């Protein structure tokens, strides 16, 4: 389990996260929602090791991983799919996938590759094509597939809905929800699109200006109209 305690991050004078604490339990989706600039991406990037926290602690399976490098964090089993469909267009689909988890054994990687192609059949059909030939939704699948190739216990999904058609977003998020339930994967999902995110999530956390203003069962958060007006702007 991934535990975040009193995490604060700042960029110069701007404090992006102020004392955030939360838990990401296995087998379910935990959704962090909030408006633009709430600190959602900072949270994800810090967990993945891309940003160094000012204070606070991140523990994973009782190991302190605060401030570790991204390449070490992912090797421990925490994989981030960053915002904006993080595929490498100059590589083929299969190369993008094979990039994930190079430190793992040949057998482990083959199993993960087969699994990625089963989960996302379209990637299998296009395995030798350049990733630049994929549509937005396919690229997001590829980005998730690459993260899964690292054999993660925790999957961090940063704004997967960005720029995608609603139907595709629903498909991808439902798939992620099923994956969490079936394989015990812990998913931390960050979204501006609260409705869809809270539908697949078990727990919802509302982030505003770097602070957690509310957390609870996803359904409750989804029905809290006041909260929606105040922090999510609809």
């Amino acid at each position, binding site marked *: 389990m991934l535990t975040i305690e009193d995490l604060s991050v700042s960029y110069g004078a701007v404090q992006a996260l102020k004392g955030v604490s939360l838990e990401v339990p296995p087998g379910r989706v935990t959704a962090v929602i909030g408006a633009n600039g709430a600190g959602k991406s900072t949270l994800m990037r810090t967990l*993945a090791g*891309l940003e160094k926290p000012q204070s606070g602690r991140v523990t994973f399976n009782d190991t302190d991983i605060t401030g570790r*490098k*991204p*390449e070490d964090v*992912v*090797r421990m089993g925490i*994989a*981030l799919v*960053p915002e904006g469909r*993080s*595929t*490498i267009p*100059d*590589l083929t689909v299969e*190369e993008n996938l*094979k*990039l*994930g*988890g*190079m*430190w793992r054994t040949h057998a482990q990687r083959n199993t993960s590759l087969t699994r990625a192609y089963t989960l996302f059949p379209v990637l299998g059909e296009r395995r030798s094509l350049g990733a630049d030939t994929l549509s937005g939704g396919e690229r997001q699948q590829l980005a998730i597939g*690459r*993260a899964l*190739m*690292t054999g993660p216990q925790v999957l961090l999904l940063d704004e997967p809905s960005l720029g995608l058609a609603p139907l595709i977003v629903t498909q991808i998020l439902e798939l992620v929800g099923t994956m969490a339930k079936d394989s015990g994967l812990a998913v931390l999902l960050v979204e501006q699109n609260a409705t869809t995110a809270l539908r697949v999530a078990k727990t919802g956390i509302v982030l505003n200006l770097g602070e957690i203003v509310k957390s609870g069962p996803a359904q409750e958060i989804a029905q809290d109209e006041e909260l929606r007006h105040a922090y999510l702007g609809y």
Partner: protein
Amino acid sequence: MTNFIDYFLGGISSGVIIALMALALVLVWRSTRVVNFAQLAQAMFTTFIALTVRDLTGSWLLALAAALASGLVLGVIVHFLVIRPVKRMDTSGAIIATFGVLIALEAFAGMIWGGDGKAFPPPIRNTGFEIGGRVWPFSPYDLLVVVTVIVLVLALTIVFTRTSVGLAMRASAFNPEVARLSGVRVSRMLVLGWAIAGFVGAVAGVLVAPLTTLSPTAFDVFLVFAFTAAVIGGLDSLVGAVAFGIGTGLVISLVSGYTDSSNAPVVALVLLVVNLLFKPEGVFTHHKARTV
């Protein structure tokens, strides 16, 4: 017409060597986004080491091995000692720092081996093949050069496209953040990029030395040619570096043949300017635009 064929043949071996030099520049650019203006000074230094080994042992192969090993090591040393500390502060500072390395290496070489040109004898005959009662400007040594370059480029292609390390290096070049998030130790890939570039440059140095004389500044003119080829090729394209390296060699040979060899660097610079005016991103590039 026979003139043209002569000049063309004469340009092949220098073309493939320039291709190697351009390749070394591209390898460094891809790994650290730094143009290493000291690349050929490193090659000059390792070629002097090779010449020393050759004089001591009399073996060209041992000399080549010494050049390759010292090329790898020198690439890594320059990266750790100069580029990494400077780049932490400023990327353009790192590019300027490579000029510093160039000047330092040429000065050291002058102190150790002297400033005069030295002959680096070819391992096999460097007089042209005689076919049909005529001596053509293509020698057994030229053939050795071409074969060596082809083997090296093929080997690099296989490493880059068929192995995990190659994939990790390419990914680190295209998108270091995604590579790190995938578990690639990108900083090691950068070191590897400098090491391989040093290796490739060392091969180019040993191959080109018998075609010219070896002195601390002997390879300066090749820097102009290699830089031109690398930039026209797109600076991050290995294919572009090889194609335009050979092209540059042929153009230079034709210019030298029909006019005078002192015009060659000028023509290279003209090519570079024309390229920057009309296709600044390079011909084989992955990126849409590069500011000039």
